[in-house]
């Protein structure tokens, strides 16, 4: 009889045990202070969002079109490879985002970790947070507010590179002629968010 059969009775994969063990690992890693990046996904009207948080706060929101696997790899490279699916740390963020899409929340009250953005892009993000729910600002106006009126294209780049779309409202930045302009999550998502806020 082949030696391959010796372990035939021992399951190759035991899905229930893996679920249990992964939850236990996420909890004990958090307790030990070595859960550097926790993430989960959240189904929303604009598709499945990836939410990731460090111990400091929400560090990344990504649309499905941005490729969640690629985003996780980027987090591993830029923040820490200690990345685990660990929904508990994202409970509050997920809840607030759900309220936002249900039209019951206009402001996010969450600790944010903006370490993925620096320099002028970071300055732009700070100013985006001043554009209120249901209003818009032009790329030129944001450039002026950020202290560099000529940097209209750089504002566009900063919005495209926003690590926290939806929560840091780059969707509220539109072109001076009133047309929508580009968006990290695609123009359909931008249109949906602006329509939600206009309702």
């Amino acid at each position, binding site marked *: 009889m082949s030696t391959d059969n*010796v*372990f035939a009775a021992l*399951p190759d*994969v035991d899905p229930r045990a*893996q679920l249990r063990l992964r939850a236990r690992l996420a909890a*004990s890693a958090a307790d030990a202070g070595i859960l550097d990046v926790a993430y989960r996904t959240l189904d929303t009207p604009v598709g499945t969002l990836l939410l990731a948080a460090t111990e400091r706060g929400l560090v990344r929101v990504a649309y499905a079109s941005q490729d969640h696997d690629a985003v996780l790899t980027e987090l591993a490279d830029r923040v820490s*490879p200690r990345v685990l699916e660990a929904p508990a740390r994202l409970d509050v963020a997920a809840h607030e985002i759900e309220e936002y899409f249900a039209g019951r929340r206009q402001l996010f009250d969450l600790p944010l970790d903006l370490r993925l953005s620096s320099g002028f892009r970071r300055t732009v993000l700070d100013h985006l947070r001043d554009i209120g729910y249901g209003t818009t600002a032009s790329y030129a106006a944001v450039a002026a507010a950020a202290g560099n009126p000529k940097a209209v294209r750089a504002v566009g780049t900063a919005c495209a590179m926003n690590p926290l779309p939806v929560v840091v409202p780059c969707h509220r930045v539109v072109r001076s002629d009133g047309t929508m302009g580009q968006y990290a999550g695609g123009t359909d998502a931008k249109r949906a968010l602006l329509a939600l806020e206009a309702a």
Partner: protein
Amino acid sequence: MKPFEAIVTEYGPTVLRVCRAVVGPAAAEDAWSETFLSALRAYPDLRPGSNIEAWLVTIAHRKAIDHVRAESRRAVPTDHLPERPGTDGVPGGWESDLWMALKALPLKQRETVAYHYLVGLPYADVAAIVGGSPEAARRAAADGIAALRKSYLQGAER
């Protein structure tokens, strides 16, 4: 570097089989959890290009030894063998037959059989993990498999 989650997905099931084969059903999940917590801690310092599977089995081996030692410290001679319920709720499943056969092997045989036949590590890697020469690891695994054939596979055919 891959996110650690990808490492858990890729190697979690194999490490669980190893833990089950070496420490048995009761302590396997503790050994698995300790292995991956330890691995998560050390992961950022892992050299690029390392054999991740062998690295994880090395950690699992240390955790398993801790459990086996703790078990033998707890063991008290008795006339009555208590019946232990399986943890997976499969009556007559692997934990009652295969584990009984594995448990009867000397630890070194159980380890070498698991690391070579279950994980597929070459004897050089198995020897690096359990100590001794590759040839000694090969002999221990061969003896272990022969004993399992006799005690478990033939028993299963009866």
